[in-house]
């Protein structure tokens, strides 16, 4: 059944080489943190222990902000909660190996629970990015104030000191923090390169597209927030043990902003950059604060502003731009192996029409944009939706993919009423939507985009970057017809407009929908590209039994490929018939010559 279409022996070698480099780097880093204390001064050991714990936090900020695009100031609070959980337990209940283990568990578990709550508050259908930032500010403020008002329980403004934690010395904590940092860094590096790690970047690039590929982006972001809260809590546990003191400042949003500054200076979206940024800046701050206390902060602040304006991706991005290969140029031939996979038929077949619209209505205030639209679409039909400007075509498409849009009437897809459903639920009913402006993921490769379309069907790996790409035959055919199969490892931002349109269509088909909605799929394409898209659409409907609904202005294109034409005028359905019936109708002539209301 599996049928190799493009063979790339170099690919797996490259993967292996990268794994080897990563392994060697990890070993070197481990050696450094294990033998480092022999060569470092007491002061440096002390400061670097702290810096390395902070670097773990910077990684969590990078995963949230750099990779997923969620600007957060709240990681300090999870860190503080972890540290306080540890200190409070060890102070008030006592210190024993069991209790220390319990402290470790609590230091991770409590932030995870809080992270879930914060995530649930921050991410819901229709939430804005700025709202998540707002919550990330409110949360640390609440935590800090609660600590202040906690009396002897939390030590109030003076913090907690004098509890006994892990029985390690100065050097022991250095090694423990160092090993933890290496492990977290390695884990993060493996994760972001894995198939599921790429979802984070996909969400950052184009969250709407993710939702229309059937991914529940809200849940992914909540889970990410919860897990990274746990990691921050772990860092808090380390900190509480290593420093022997916790203070309200550890939880404050100001510390949270410092984490963002380090991440930005090191280079967002690079993992290693923020690690170096955090360790470097925190260490230098401690070393220089004696001699040039305020000047140093001034320099950091200035660098930060300059960096945000002129080099938003940080120093590491500059370095990688100078050295990187592969990405950033069109790569012909390379990339994962395409594997043709039998259709999964994951969408249940039903009797009756695939789409059934009954008296659909949409109004904005008193203005009715759609009224009394009734329409059935069966498998294998290619229905074109036409009508002059403002007829309500795009509004109708929106109503079909978002159950919260319509103001009246019933829309059933495969027999299911979609009222109240959000896009990813409707996609799961077997609907694929292609947008007017190609909606793809600009900073992913062609192959990664296609893999995103499969992510809702088969859970991607958290560790591995797969070197095969399984797609249904129809999607592979689109890639071959348009030459995209030769550009699998090319970054999407380098594709032409027409190639992006084709890629989006292939992504939608890879979802294996039963019905495809297309909003002006040929806008801005050359004649040859139009013909190709037309051929593909005809094949999808005629031979493979997809239903398609098309909004399109290019008359020749509509005439050529439609099996049926539906005319909308001023929000009403005025005509529904075969191509010939509609083209020769008098009503249509009246509408298009600017005649009276129909």
């Amino acid at each position, binding site marked *: 059944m599996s049928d190799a279409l493009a063979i790339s022996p170099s690919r797996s070698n490259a993967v292996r080489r990268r794994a080897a480099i990563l392994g060697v780097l990890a070993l070197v880093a481990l050696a450094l943190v294990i033998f480092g204390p022999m060569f470092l001064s007491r002061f440096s050991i002390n400061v670097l222990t702290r810096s390395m714990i902070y670097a773990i936090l910077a990684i969590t900020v990078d995963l949230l902000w750099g990779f997923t695009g969620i600007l957060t100031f709240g990681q300090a609070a999870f860190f503080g909660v972890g540290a306080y959980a540890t200190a409070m337990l060890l102070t008030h209940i006592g210190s024993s190996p069991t209790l220390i283990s319990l402290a470790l568990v609590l230091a991770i578990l409590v932030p995870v629970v809080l992270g879930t709550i914060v995530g649930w508050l921050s991410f819901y259908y229709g939430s804005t990015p700025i709202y998540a930032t707002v919550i990330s500010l409110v949360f640390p403020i609440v935590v800090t104030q609660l600590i202040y008002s906690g009396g002897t329980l939390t030590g109030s403004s003076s913090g907690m000191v004098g509890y006994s934690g892990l029985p390690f010395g100065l050097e022991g904590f250095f090694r423990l923090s160092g090993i933890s940092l290496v492990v977290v860094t390695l884990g993060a590096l493996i994760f972001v390169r894995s198939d599921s790690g790429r979802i984070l970047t996909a969400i950052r690039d184009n969250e709407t597209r993710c939702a229309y590929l059937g991914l529940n982006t809200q849940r992914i972001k909540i889970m990410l927030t919860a897990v990274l809260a746990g990691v921050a809590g772990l860092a808090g546990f380390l900190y509480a043990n290593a420093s022997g003191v916790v203070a309200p400042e550890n939880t404050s949003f100001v510390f949270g902003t410092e984490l963002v500054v380090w991440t930005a200076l090191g280079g967002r979206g690079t993992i290693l950059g923020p690690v170096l940024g955090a360790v470097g800046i925190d260490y230098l701050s401690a070393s220089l604060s004696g001699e040039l206390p305020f000047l140093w902060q001034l320099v950091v602040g200035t660098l930060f502003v300059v960096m945000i304006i002129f080099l938003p991706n940080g120093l590491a991005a500059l370095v990688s731009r100078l050295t990187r290969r592969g990405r950033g140029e069109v790569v012909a031939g390379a990339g994962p192996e395409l594997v043709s996979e039998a259709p999964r038929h994951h969408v249940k077949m039903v009797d009756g029409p695939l789409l059934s619209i009954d008296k659909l209505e949409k109004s904005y205030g008193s203005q009715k944009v759609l009224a009394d639209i009734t329409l059935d679409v069966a498998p294998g039909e290619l229905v074109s939706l036409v009508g002059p400007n403002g007829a309500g075509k795009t509004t109708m498409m929106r109503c079909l993919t978002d159950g919260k849009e319509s103001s009246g009437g019933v829309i059933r897809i495969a027999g299911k009423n979609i009222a109240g459903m959000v896009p990813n639920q409707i996609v799961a009913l077997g609907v694929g939507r292609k947008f007017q402006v190609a909606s793809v993921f600009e900073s992913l490769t062609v192959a990664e985009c296609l893999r995103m379309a499969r992510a809702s069907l088969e859970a991607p790996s958290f560790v591995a970057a797969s070197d095969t790409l399984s797609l249904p035959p129809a999607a592979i055919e689109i890639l071959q017809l348009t030459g995209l199969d030769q550009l699998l490892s090319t970054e999407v931002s380098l594709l032409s*407009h027409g190639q992006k349109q084709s890629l989006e269509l292939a992504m939608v088909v890879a979802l294996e929908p039963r019905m495809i909605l297309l909003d*002006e799929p040929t806008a801005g394409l050359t004649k040859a590209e139009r013909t190709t898209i037309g051929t593909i659409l005809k094949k999808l409907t005629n031979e493979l039994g997809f239903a398609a609904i098309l909004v399109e202005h290019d008359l020749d294109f509509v005439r050529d490929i439609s099996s049926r034409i539906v005319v909308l005028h001023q929000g009403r359905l005025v005509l529904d018939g075969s191509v010939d019936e509609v083209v020769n109708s008098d009503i249509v002539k009246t509408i298009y010559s*600017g005649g009276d209301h129909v």
Partner: protein
Amino acid sequence: MFDTAKTETKLELDGVTSGYGPIAIIKDLSLSIRKGEIFALMGKNGMGKTTLLKTILGLVSARSGEIQLDGRSIVGASPKALIKSGVGYAPQEQPLFTDLSIQDNLRLAIRSDRDLGAALEHVFTHFPFLRDRLAQQAGTLSGGEQKMLILSRALMLKPDLILIDEISEGLQPTVIAQIAKALQAEQAENGTTILLVEQNLNFALDVADRWAVLKLGEIDDSGIADADSRERVLEHLKI
């Protein structure tokens, strides 16, 4: 009618390509509008009509080609500069500040409140109903009244060239007739050049001297507005 006056070129487009991001909406388009004429540019949705107007006005920057107003290049000029040199614009999408009063909508078209009185008198000659309703919120006007307000605002500075985007959309024939009258009066009295973007071919061919049909960002057909035009244009416009 004005054949002698209409030999001079008011607006000249030569090989203009423009669009959004990577997408070219207008492709290598050339067009010449003569001084004092009403020119109707027709075409269906998505064929680039609005983008063409925005390109002329500098709201969308031309990627290549030359645009000249009165023989001077205006490529790269700001909307502010163009409006100053006598261009009026009646947009189609979100064309009014619906929460502002009629008067404030009109005020925003002029640079200084000192000119307000005279400019208002000028538009009242075409649309007298505005006079008594200056304080009314623009969003509460009927569809036809809103269109007349949009056109009035474009006339405030007595421009030499007006770019009008689908002013007839969704209007009753009586309102369309009123607008047609205003346009023809501006042309006759002030020698104003008007570039009309339209889908309503009855209206467009009634008022225009010449026409062209835009298809996929290129001129597909063009001619003088006469008795035979209607059938010819309908073939391009209908589905």
